[in-house]
């Protein structure tokens, strides 16, 4: 059974769709602007949610709408069969650090009980589940530089194991003083999301297949992981990879480095890469796209291949 991307949601500074994301990436310059969650979600209920949760909700709303899982404010599929995976490394680090400083300065009377849910790192994934009644497996991945592609891999695993029929994968990182201090520079302050489904499920509900999910690998370094990929996948048409990984990639092909445009993407990277690659495929770019998150100086490197959907009218050979 093949798995597909059937929706993309983008809530990045200066880009609110896969098309806008791919276009901004092509210019190589930050498009300017900032994500304003109240404009996307309405003001109600946002007050005590941290920035990462708000950004994640924006991308989730857009991907649910784009994929058709949400129509007229209601789910069109069974919420108990819909999983949520969110990838973020810095998500709630600001809340945690702020609270511990407040306790040191003022004692516990200085802290707000409204921060309690945000002290748990999975707040982003649970708020997305709560807002739309998504009761399937709910996972918060905080897995370092490769975390975003790991989220796609494990989202696909939930489909393969039959634990879910629809998987919402979100990558998000907030920008704030504390997160900057930890990573050494400004962060994206945005989010992206994709919906994954089996092609049969997509077909059954009349959804559009935007990309097919190919092989994935995870290993110690870039050369090794893409070498493994080359054993099972046809040559890439383009790369989505961090600049530091470029020396290990086959030369002569476009390499899209999202951090060059939006700053540090950390745990959001792999999901934003997927969104950008689908945006490019939507616009008629050649595939397959090979995605790389993590570099030789990180704890691990993850890769993923996205293939163009089979064009309408072309029937795949019977297996």
């Amino acid at each position, binding site marked *: 059974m093949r798995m597909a991307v059937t929706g993309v949601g983008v809530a990045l500074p200066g880009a609110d769709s896969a098309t806008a994301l791919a276009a901004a990436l092509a210019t190589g310059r930050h498009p300017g602007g900032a994500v304003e969650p109240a404009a996307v979600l309405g003001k109600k209920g946002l007050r005590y949610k941290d920035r990462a949760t708000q950004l994640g909700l924006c991308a989730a709303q857009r991907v649910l709408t784009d994929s058709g899982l949400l129509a007229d404010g209601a789910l069109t599929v069974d919420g*108990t069969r819909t999983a*949520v995976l969110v990838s973020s*490394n*810095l998500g709630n*680090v600001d*809340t*945690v*650090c702020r*609270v*511990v*400083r407040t*306790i*040191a300065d003022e*004692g*516990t009377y200085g*802290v707000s*009980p409204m*921060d*309690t*849910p945000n*002290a*748990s*790192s*999975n*707040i982003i*994934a*649970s*708020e997305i*589940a*709560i807002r*739309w*009644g*998504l*009761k*399937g*497996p*709910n*996972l*918060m*991945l*905080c*897995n*370092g530089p490769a*975390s975003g592609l*790991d989220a796609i891999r*494990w989202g696909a*695993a939930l489909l393969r*194991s039959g*634990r879910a029929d629809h998987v919402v994968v979100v990558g998000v990182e907030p920008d704030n003083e*504390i997160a900057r201090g*930890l*990573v050494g520079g400004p962060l994206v302050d945005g989010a992206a999301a994709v919906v994954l489904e089996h092609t049969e499920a997509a077909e059954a509900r009349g959804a559009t297949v935007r990309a097919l999910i190919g092989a994935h690998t*995870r*290993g*110690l370094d870039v050369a090794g992981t893409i070498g493994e990929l080359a054993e099972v996948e046809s040559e890439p048409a383009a790369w989505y990879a961090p600049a530091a990984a470029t020396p290990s990639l086959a030369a002569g092909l476009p390499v899209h480095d999202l951090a060059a445009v939006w700053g540090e993407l*950390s745990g959001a990277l792999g999901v934003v890469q997927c969104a950008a690659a689908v945006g490019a495929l939507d616009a008629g770019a050649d595939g397959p796209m090979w995605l790389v998150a993590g570099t030789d100086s*990180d*704890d*691990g*490197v993850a890769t993923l291949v996205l293939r163009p959907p089979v064009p309408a009218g072309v029937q795949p050979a019977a297996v």
Partner: protein
Amino acid sequence: MRVPIIGVGAVASVGRDADEIFAGLCAGRGGLGPMRGFDSGLYNGKQLFEIDDRPEGADRTLRATGFLLDAVGQAAADAGLGDDLSGVPVLVGTGLRELRSAELWWRDGAPFGVDRLHFGTALRERFGTADTLTVSNACSASLYTLALGADLLAMGEADTVIVAGVDSITESMHGLADRVQPNPPTALRTLDVNRRGTILGDGAAAVVLRGEHVKWPGGRLWGRLRGVGMTCDAKHPTAPDPEQVAEAMRQAHRLAGTRPEDIDMVMLHGTGTPLNDLVEITAYGEVFGEAAGGPVLTGIKPMTGHTSGSAGLMSLVTTLQTMATGKVPPLVNLDEPIEEAAGLRLVRAQEAKHEVALAQVHGFGFGGVNAVAIVEGS
């Protein structure tokens, strides 16, 4: 599904390895003590279930990482895998990652970097594996990773998987709870009418899973994982809800091909908060119906504290030891059970002798993340 469990490891306030912890639990010996790592002058609740690893007194970074490496190393050794785990995926469930280190970095200027917020960096350094996963799923995290590990084996992506859970207490989590507890609990009293809340603990636990159809030269078989159900309440960020807690139990039985009446023991999540215990026992009663009086019920948190992300696997490791020995640790501090638990076979006061062939292990967490595992003895 019958996934062999071929190695276990754990560290907690009550013991430095799985055997020492189990001996302590059976003896009714808890690990609650005066707060060591935080300034007790700042808090109403001045007791925690900490691992006593700071003889110098002052707190330090990367304690959770150390606990994790310890538990994973124990489990790998128990399974005869040694210290080279290259090619072995290690999936870690945690509530608080290395957020305690981030606190010390921000507040005190302790050296710390984003590369150690998750556990992949240390696992690679120590064991050589690059296929690692840090899942931050609150208090059911390690049962969630247990499910992922079993799925990975079933899909044929690995022959052997190590699943682990870990947490060291963060001051922010303790402080936020303390803020709303002017009269904090002095003991963790699962299912007691006078329970007043939970108390956090440090801990790590790990198990080694082997693919069902993979030949291996033998060694110890602790038991077999039959199934793990996982659901999300999608109701409230911190308060649990019985509907999806019950569904996680039903799902686990569906996946395992078992029925409630087959269960000999239930290892409760049992945090000792008024709401958790009520929701858990209500959902249990609903799912088990007339079979509710069958299994014995116990839990370890009154003695280990709430070890958050490691709690589910800590319960699983204890369950496997119960299966091996026929000894069931008691729910200490349970003087007067709540009305909803009337008629249930609660193990109280002291260890019970009970043959357990099939057990159900609970883990529920903030965000309404629920996981229930069913395990059978060897």
